[in-house]
């Protein structure tokens, strides 16, 4: 038996670790969250898919999604530890800041005002009851999302340090610069209704250090071997067959000759090989009201989402998304340039991302070319198609632009209003009550309809 003073040294796990292991963890878990929540919630809220039995989200009884809240803060703590690590360096810090910015945007766009500037100080300052910060400050203040990204770019441009454990870019810092700038475009556009972001976005575009192709996009692939397989590949059958093509998707794809339809969804059971049918079911129907649909006439989701362990690419951000952001910015005059060029690049990039070939003539078919006065809707619709299963991105875009036009679920439980946030986790009420109460007051109620700053 051990000596008395040695007995309480924990031999099971390390007290200090090299930052590379934490970085690998954040990349693996963070990207997985994108795909996982894309399947479980984002695609329902954006109406890429609809649900049959597990209906809370689809009927807008959203709850708090406390699991994601807790995990996101834990990842942010991992990122903080990368920055604080004695074995770290400038490059690690900058990369950690980029990922912190991404996680923070997820928090504030899902819950509105959230603890940010006071957050993660339990260990360092014994602050276990962090105050909630305004979304505006989280995006725009010093140390906020945009500031972190901007400074990270500057740091990475000058550093000679190296990082390990980078399962996304294998330590290529130029890729990180492009990712950071692309995120800046995303977030500048997100707040562009409130702030004039034109100069900053233009300079990012002019500088050119943004995604130049799909090769640079921020994607962490699933692997063929366990335990890094796509979650639905290992999930029970029920989880897969419970999710169906939505009526919204059916309507959006109807006028298009678009191979992505056959990729994202399966033909209905009652289809014949010569006459493949792709049908959706409206979102948020009560079980009883689903009875008027024969499920054999409703499409499941594509087989790549069930039958392959590694066909799904968990994306923080794709090249296609950047192109659609630029298209929208150009359309709105935030940046110079032709919206249609960015738009067409985006469509092409989406096909490339999925490993599909864009049919010839795709860009010229009815409803695709811009210029008929519905450019924004068309851009957002193509972006919506490209954002399939990418976290909550398509939902954020819908909340911001109202496009594509979604249908309020007939049996929703939210008074016929599209929700814009999750409720705060009830743990915050229980353990951070005073700050919780003032946050609830600040946003106008802890319900699903209290809009954040950028979408007011």
């Amino acid at each position: 038996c051990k000596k008395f003073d040695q007995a309480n040294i924990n031999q099971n796990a390390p007290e200090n670790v090299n930052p590379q292991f934490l970085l690998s963890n954040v990349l693996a878990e963070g990207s997985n969250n994108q795909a996982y929540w894309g399947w479980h919630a984002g695609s329902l809220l954006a109406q890429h898919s609809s649900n049959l039995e597990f209906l809370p989200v689809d009927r807008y009884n959203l709850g708090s999604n406390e699991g994601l809240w807790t995990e996101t803060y834990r990842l942010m703590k991992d990122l903080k530890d990368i920055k604080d690590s004695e074995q770290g360096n400038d490059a690690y810090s900058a990369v950690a800041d980029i990922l912190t910015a991404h996680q923070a945007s997820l928090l504030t766009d899902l819950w509105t005002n959230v603890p940010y500037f006071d957050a993660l100080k339990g260990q360092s300052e014994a602050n276990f009851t962090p105050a909630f910060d305004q979304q505006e400050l989280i995006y725009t203040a010093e140390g906020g999302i945009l500031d972190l990204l901007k400074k990270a770019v500057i740091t990475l441009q000058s550093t000679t340090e190296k990082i390990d454990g980078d399962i996304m870019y294998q330590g290529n810092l130029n890729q990180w610069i492009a990712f950071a700038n692309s995120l800046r475009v995303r977030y500048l556009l997100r707040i562009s209704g409130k702030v004039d972001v034109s100069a900053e976005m233009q300079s990012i575009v002019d500088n050119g250090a943004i995604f130049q192709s799909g090769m640079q996009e921020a994607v962490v692939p699933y692997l063929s071997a366990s335990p890094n397989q796509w979650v639905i590949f290992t999930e029970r059958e029920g989880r897969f067959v419970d999710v169906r093509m939505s009526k919204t998707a059916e309507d959006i794809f109807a006028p298009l000759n678009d191979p992505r339809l056959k990729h994202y969804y399966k033909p209905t059971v009652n289809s014949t090989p010569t006459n493949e049918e792709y049908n959706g079911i409206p979102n948020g129907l009560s079980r009883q009201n689903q009875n008027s649909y024969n499920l054999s006439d409703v499409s499941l989701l594509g087989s790549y989402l069930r039958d392959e362990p590694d066909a799904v690419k968990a994306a923080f951000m794709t090249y296609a998304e950047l192109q659609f952001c630029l298209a929208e910015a150009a359309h709105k005059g935030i940046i110079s340039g032709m919206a249609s060029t960015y738009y067409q690049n985006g469509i092409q990039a989406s096909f490339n991302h999925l490993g599909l070939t864009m049919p010839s003539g795709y860009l010229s078919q009815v409803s695709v070319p811009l210029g008929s006065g519905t450019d924004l809707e068309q851009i957002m619709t193509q972006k919506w198609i490209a954002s399939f299963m990418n976290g909550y991105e398509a939902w954020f875009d819908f909340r911001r632009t109202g496009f594509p036009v979604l249908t309020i679920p007939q049996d929703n439980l939210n008074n016929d209003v599209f929700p814009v946030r999750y409720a705060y986790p009830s743990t915050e009420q229980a353990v951070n009550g005073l700050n919780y109460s003032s946050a609830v007051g600040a946003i106008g109620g802890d319900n699903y309809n209290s809009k954040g700053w950028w979408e007011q």
Partner: protein
Amino acid sequence: QKTIQGVVFNEKNEAIPYVKVKIIGENQGAETDEKGAFQLVVNATDSIQFSAVGYKSQGFSVQSKIDWTITLVSSVNELDEVVITALGLKRSKRDLGYAIQSLKGEEITEVRHPNLVNSLAGRVAGVQTTSGSSGVGSSSRIIIRGETSLSGNNQPLFVVDGVPVSNEFIANNTENLESGFHEVDYGNGIGDFSADDIESINVLKGPSAAALYGSRAAGGVIIIETKEGKRSDGIGVSINSSVTFEQIAFLPEFQNTYGQGSGGKFAYEDGLGGGIGDGGLVSFGPALNGQLITQYDGASFDENGNPLRGGDVIARKGNPITATPWTENPDNVRAFFNTGVTSQQNIALSGANESGSFRLSYTRLDNQGTLPNSDFKRNNVAFTSTYNFSERLSIRTHATFINSSSTHRPGLGYGSENVMYSFLWMGRQVDLEAAEDYWQSGQEGFRQFNYNTQWLDNPYFNVFENRNGFEKNRLLGNAILKYEISEHWNIRFRSGIDTYADLRTSQRAFSTQRFKNGAYREDNVTFSELNTDLMLGYDNTFGEKWSFNAAIGANNFTQETKYKSLLAGQLSVPGVYNFENSKVALKASQFNAQKQINSVYGLTGIGFDRFLFLDLTVRNDWSTTLPSESNSFAYYSVNGAFVFSEKIELPKWFSYGKLRASTSSVGSDTGPFQLRNTYSFNQNYGSYPLLTNSSTLLNENLKPERINALETGVELYFFKERLGVDVTVYQNTAKDQIITLPTSSASGYSGQVINGGEIQSKGIEIMLTGTVVKRQNFSWTAFANFSKGASYVTELPEGIDQYTTGFARLYTTAENTVFYIADAENGGRIGDMYGTGFMKTDEGRVIYGANGLPIRDNELRYLGNYNPDFIVGFGNRFKYKGFELNILLDWRQGGEIISRTKAVGSTSGVLAETIDGREEGIIGDGVVNVGTESNPVYEENTTSVSAAEYYNQFYNRANEESSVYDASYLKIREIGLSYTFPNSWVSKFNIQEFKIGIVASNLFTWTENPHFDPELSAMQGTSQIYGVEDLSYPSSRSYGIQVKFKF
């Protein structure tokens, strides 16, 4: 003058040592030896008196008698009873300044509970027991005087023959491993013991009584003395045999009017949504009127025309299913359960002579559970010996080897591994008979056959294929070496070990919901605890009146725990459960921990004239689990007793009176590794290792906990001791508790380890004992005990405005959580539960939306408290000649429990009460706001919604308010009727004792809710939780026969 000699026996013909034989009126006397023998020089005119602690004194005049055989009758009451106190010291109960309660071995073997803890229910005041939900072999929890500590498990320390033993249950790790494996209860440590090997159980209730045992005894101590060999002619043999049958009580009350589906429609095609509602989980389908509908057990055929069942989906290849009558199956769930059988067989051999004794005992417990294929087996071999090397040097050794095992322990918690989940989401029309053949035709080993393949596992498949087996080998041993240095000095060395290895194997077949390619897992727990104790004692009397004893000693405690888990999350070949068959990289989880406590202690006791007694104890512990600058902590206890009836002239009917008081201050440490944070290993990404922050922030500045206890009581006996009253009031104040406090995860951690605020527990315990009727052939004795207590937060930890001490999940996600909040503004009682519910008007009316559905409100509100208001135990014993009837009632009043069975079964529409409104719809009782949010105008809700919609929203699982029940119950805990054959008759066959009886336990329970037994505990993650019912298995009532032989 002459010398007389003799032997003193008790009523059972056992020799009594240490009986004082005194010449009345003189200062001379003798004492009986170990064999009950004495010699004394007397005059024929003398009168002599025989007195011994625990027996009625008897006096005789000597006259000419030389050889004496005396039988002393034990005292009717417990006045002078000898009890075992801390460190195994035998004390007369009348000397003690604190509450202690004793049970004899016979009492707990009257109706033998497989888990020893359950034997204490109702019998001991202030004790609260909770049974595990998975039947024989599951954990039973025991709490004395409520929860003083928020940390730890609050359970008392168990001590066997003076040596602490483990009562812990080290659960399988449920983190970091493939989701899908549910909590399994493999039983608490004390459940391993056989009641037949137990001589007595002494319950030390307060910290005062337990102060000498150190920090682990803050929740009280249960002292178990094992049986020793008794003197008899040759080798004594005793046989105790019982067989009991268990039948489930408390199945959820189901409705039998509507079957599966929604909106009155259903058709089975593949159980996966291919028909109408056949992948669905709710029973709001067609009324069960015998109409023809396709079902999973309807007839079909394969491509060659061979008969198949509808659910043989693969072989059927879409061929039509013959529609069958849609009828009720009210007993479909009940019929799934079996009549359980528990056989407990014990044989013991014993013998003794002048120089020593031995007892060898073998107990076999065999249980077939009420859940098919679940079982529990236990073999106990116990050997106790005593040997006197000389007049002065003696040794006592005890060893028990316990082997326990099971083929299958049921999965608990929420999800497809719990068969109750399969039933609460099962269409009410399902005839389960077809499900017994649980493989699809032609798919044996690959595809299960079930009524719903989208979400549920076939319950037969679940219990026969997806097993959680275990085998545990445990060795307990202790040796006590005692040396009498002189008449007054003695030295005692005691060492005991408790060690076990528990191998748990979990296998999952192909096509299991959570493991489509099967899985295999092994969890290995090894544990050892060593306690070594050396004590020097002194004992003397000074003059006629003063008695004095003192001891000093030192103790070392060393505990080591090793846990290892390996998992093959997918298998290559079905049906082969080993790691070579793994299709994927194995996952591992490992944790080793050790802990040591070194202690020194001292105690002294002073008695004056048999009516005043004072005890003092001090102890100091050094624990490895605390920071080195604060790892030493001292504690003390002082207690005194005043037997006032000895000094004060009382009326004749007032036989005895004693006042007692005690105070103590007890320190406590914590578990291993609570000081410095480490990072947790995550599963690798390819060849990249991943590490992440742990969720709890540890604390390098921990101080020891401190519990200050005050206790005072009175013991009174009246009417020649036929009525006894014992009242204790106590107050425990716990400071600096080491607790993991939930925190905002935005702080970087979702919990932090702290020294908490101050919690005060107060309570009262009343025990009544009485001999109601006492005749030649008939007697009726009764006891009742009452306890009431509660704990309140009296000081919050620094920087905390609301004391959230923990939570329990009511669903797999965090969405549905019950918080334990001791909110100072609301009284701050420990055990208060908070959760979400409905939006309400100021008058408390539920607010409905325009859609006719109640509106959920995210705000936490008070739901109830999980602690009872009071507990009553009531026992009666009737004796008529050889017949004896024992009845024990257990009443728990108050407290709330939040039920997931209620939430799930209401949402799914299987519970009886969901019948209401099926045809006509439901207009919820409440109001609708027709004004604005800021200026509400409420009108009565008049919107009718379908029953399915209503129940779905009203019992929404993200809403805890709707599923609260009163947890009160009254149980007939035990009934035993026995007949002891007359001595005169059995002695003809050379039998000493022959007793047969019929026994029953948990025969009836009265409680508010019709669906589950509120006594059962739930298990989440690695701990048992309170106030929440989590799809518990039906508890059972048992009855059977018991036979006892001695020859």
